[in-house]
C-alpha cells in the first residue's frame, strides 16, 4: 500500500493556479525528491501534504486515510524547514522535546527520547545551548532531531540545506541518507539542486510550472528524460538540444543547413515534423577526419574543468558542447568533427516537448 497518494491535487492562490493537478503514489519507506526550478510549486506541494496549505481540489491520502481536512498535527508528518524554524528562546533539548511536551508525554520519558535522538545526530553535548549559540549545521541537526523525536510516519524536508555551505551540504546529505537507511521512514525532500536530488532520491519527481514532468529513478530520469524540459534540467553540463527535422533521406537537418545521418525513421519521426534532438555532452566525441555520422563544427572556446574540458563548438549555427577527456589544446576557430553515440540520442517533439521513442 502506498504511504502517500496524491490524486489530481490542485492549488490556486486566489484565482492564480499554482499546481495544475498532480498524481503521485509514494511507497512506504521510499525516499522521494521533488526537484524543479524555483517557483515551480515544490514547496506548495509539500506544504499541502503537511497540512499547512489547503488543497483546492483533489485528494491527499496518507496511509489509507484521506487527510484533506485533517489538522497538521494529526497527519503523522514531521517537517524540516529551510531556515530551521527553531524556537530561539528554548534550549536545544526543549526545542527537540517541544512536540512531546505538547502531546503530554511525561517528563522522564521525554528526556530519555530527547537524549536518544540528540545522540543519533551527534548533538548530545549541546542540549543546553540556545539555537543562537549554534552553527548552521548544528541548527539543521536540531531541526532534524526535532522532526525525528515524534517518530513520524513521514518526513518532509523543504530545501533544508540551502543555507549551508557546499561542504557541509555534502556531509548533511550523507547524514540524511544514513538516517533514512536506519529509520526507514517515508521521506519527501524538496530541492532545486540536482546533485542533491540525484544522490538522495530513490525516485525523483521533476516539476515544472506546477506540473509533474517525470517521475522515476535518478538513472531513468537521466537516461530517458520524458521531456525536453527534463533533458535540459537534469545533467551538468546541460544536454545539447538541436532543433530541426528529418528529411526524406533520413538525415536530420538543423541550423543553417547542417545535416546528420541518424537512426531509421518511424511514424513519429516523419519527415517535415519539427523535432528536438538531444545528446549529452558526454556522448559527443571529437574526431579529426570527416566520416559519415560526424558533423563539422568550429570551436568557439574551451572551458577547462581540470579533470576534463568542455569544447563549445558551433555547428551550422547551433551551439554544441562536448566533453573532452584528453588533455589537448585546441585554438578557437579550429575546425573539428563531432560524432554522437547513436544510442545516446534523444528525440523530443518540438511542439509539446514530449519524448518520442524510435520504436514506439
Amino acid at each position, binding site marked *: 500500500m502506498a504511504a502517500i497518494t496524491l490524486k489530481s491535487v490542485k492549488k490556486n492562490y486566489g484565482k492564480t493556479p499554482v499546481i495544475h493537478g498532480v498524481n503521485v503514489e509514494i511507497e512506504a519507506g521510499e525516499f522521494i525528491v521533488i526537484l524543479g526550478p524555483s517557483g515551480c510549486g515544490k514547496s506548495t506541494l509539500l*506544504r499541502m501534504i*503537511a*497540512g*499547512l496549505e489547503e488543497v483546492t481540489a483533489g485528494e491527499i491520502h496518507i496511509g489509507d486515510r484521506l487527510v484533506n481536512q485533517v489538522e*497538521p*498535527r494529526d497527519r503523522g*508528518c*514531521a*517537517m524540516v*524547514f*529551510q*531556515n*530551521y*524554524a*527553531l*524556537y*530561539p*528562546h528554548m534550549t536545544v533539548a526543549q526545542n527537540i522535546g*517541544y*512536540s512531546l511536551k*505538547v*502531546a503530554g508525554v511525561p517528563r522522564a520519558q521525554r528526556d530519555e527520547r530527547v537524549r536518544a535522538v540528540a545522540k543519533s545526530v551527534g548533538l548530545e553535548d549541546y542540549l543546553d545551548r*540556545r*539555537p*543562537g549559540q549554534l552553527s548552521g549545521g548544528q541548527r539543521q541537526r536540531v531541526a532534524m532531531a*526535532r522532526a525525528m523525536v515524534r517518530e513520524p510516519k513521514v518526513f518532509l524536508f523543504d530545501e533544508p540545506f540551502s543555507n549551508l555551505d557546499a561542504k557541509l551540504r555534502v556531509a548533511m546529505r550523507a547524514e540524511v541518507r544514513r538516517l533514512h537507511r536506519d529509520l526507514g521512514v517515508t521521506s519527501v525532500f524538496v530541492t532545486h539542486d540536482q546533485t542533491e536530488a540525484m544522490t538522495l532520491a530513490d525516485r525523483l519527481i521533476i516539476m515544472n510550472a506546477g506540473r509533474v514532468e517525470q517521475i522515476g529513478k535518478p538513472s531513468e530520469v537521466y537516461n530517458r528524460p520524458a521531456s525536453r524540459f527534463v533533458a535540459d534540467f537534469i545533467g551538468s553540463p546541460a544536454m545539447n538540444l538541436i532543433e530541426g527535422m528529418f528529411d526524406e533521406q533520413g538525415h536530420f537537418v538543423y541550423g543553417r543547413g547542417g545535416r546528420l545521418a541518424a537512426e531509421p525513421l518511424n511514424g513519429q519521426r516523419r519527415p517535415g515534423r519539427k523535432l528536438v534532438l538531444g545528446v549529452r555532452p558526454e556522448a559527443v566525441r571529437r574526431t579529426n577526419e570527416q566520416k559519415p555520422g560526424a558533423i563539422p563544427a568550429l570551436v568557439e572556446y574551451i572551458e577547462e574543468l581540470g579533470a576534463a574540458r568542455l569544447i563549445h563548438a558551433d555547428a551550422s549555427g547551433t551551439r554544441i558542447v562536448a566533453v573532452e577527456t584528453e588533455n589537448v589544446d585546441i585554438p578557437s576557430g579550429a575546425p573539428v568533427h563531432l560524432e554522437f553515440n547513436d544510442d545516446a540520442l534523444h528525440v523530443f517533439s518540438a511542439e509539446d516537448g514530449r519524448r518520442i521513442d524510435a520504436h514506439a
Partner: protein
Amino acid sequence: MIERSPLFNAISYAMMVIGFLIVVTPFWVVLVAASQSLSEIARVPMSLWPSAHLWENIEAAWNRADLGPKLLNSLIVALGVTFGKITIAALSAFSIVFFNYRARMVCFWMIFVTLMLPLEVRIVPTYSIAANALSPFQTLLDTLGLTGLISALTGVEVSLNWNLLNSYTGLILPLVATATGTFLYRQFFMTVPDELVEASKMDGSGPMRFFFDVLIPLSRTNMLALATIMFVSSWNQYLWPLLVTTDRENYGTVVMQLKALIPAQNGTPDWNVTMAGALIIMLPPLVIVALAQRWFVRGLISRDK
C-alpha cells in the same frame, strides 16, 4: 558619524552635557528644596545646595497627605492598568496578526483610530458609563422596546445598574484599552517568521499554546518596554482618578494628593514639605525606569539573531 575629530567630539560632549543639565536641573531643585528648613526655603535667592532637613520634611509630607495608603492605591491602579493594557494589547495584536478573518483590517483600524480619542476627549461618556457600566445594554433594551415587553409580560421593571465609581475597577478598567500597545505588539508579531508558526503547528500546538509558549517569551523585551511606559503614564494619571473617586479618603491616588501638599492660600508657605512630597511621589516610576533600563540592555545583549 564615523568621523572622530577632536572638534566633533567636543561638540557632541557639549550637547550631551546640555541635555543632561536640562533634564536634571528640575530634579536637583526639588531635592534641594525638600532638604531645606522653612526659613532656608523662604530666603531669596534660594540656595542651590542641599541642607539637612530632608527626613523631617518627608515625614511631614507623608503625614499631611496620608501618603501610605495613597501610595498603595496608586500602586494597585498603576499595576492593574499596566497588566490590563499588556494583556489586551498582546491578545488583540495576536488576533490581528495571526488569524485570517474578514473583519481583521476593520478591527485593526478601529483600534488604531482610538489613538485619536484620548481619555480627555471622551471623558464625559466614559464617566457616564463608569457610573453605570450596564447602561449601554439598558439603552439597547430600551430602544428595542424589550424593557416594555419584559415588564408587560413579567411585571418586572428591567433596570440594569453596575456602578464603578469609587472602586479599583472603576479606576482601572476605563484606562486599559490601548491602541499604542496593540500597535507595538503588532509590529513585533509581524517580525515573527511564518516558519516558526508552521513549526509549532507541526509540533501539535494550538493557537493559545503558541501564544503562551512562543510569542510571550519572545516578546519579553518588548513587553518590558511597554510595561515601563504604561506604568509611568498610569501612575501619572490625574484627571480620571479625580473624576471617578468621590471617596478620596479610601480611593485617592498619590498624584491627586499633590494638591493637598501645596500650601494653602494664607497658610505657611512650606514649599519644602511640598517638594518632599513630590519627591516621594515621583520615586516609584523612577525606580521602575531604572530597573527596566537594566533589563533592556540585558535583553538586547542576549538577543538571538
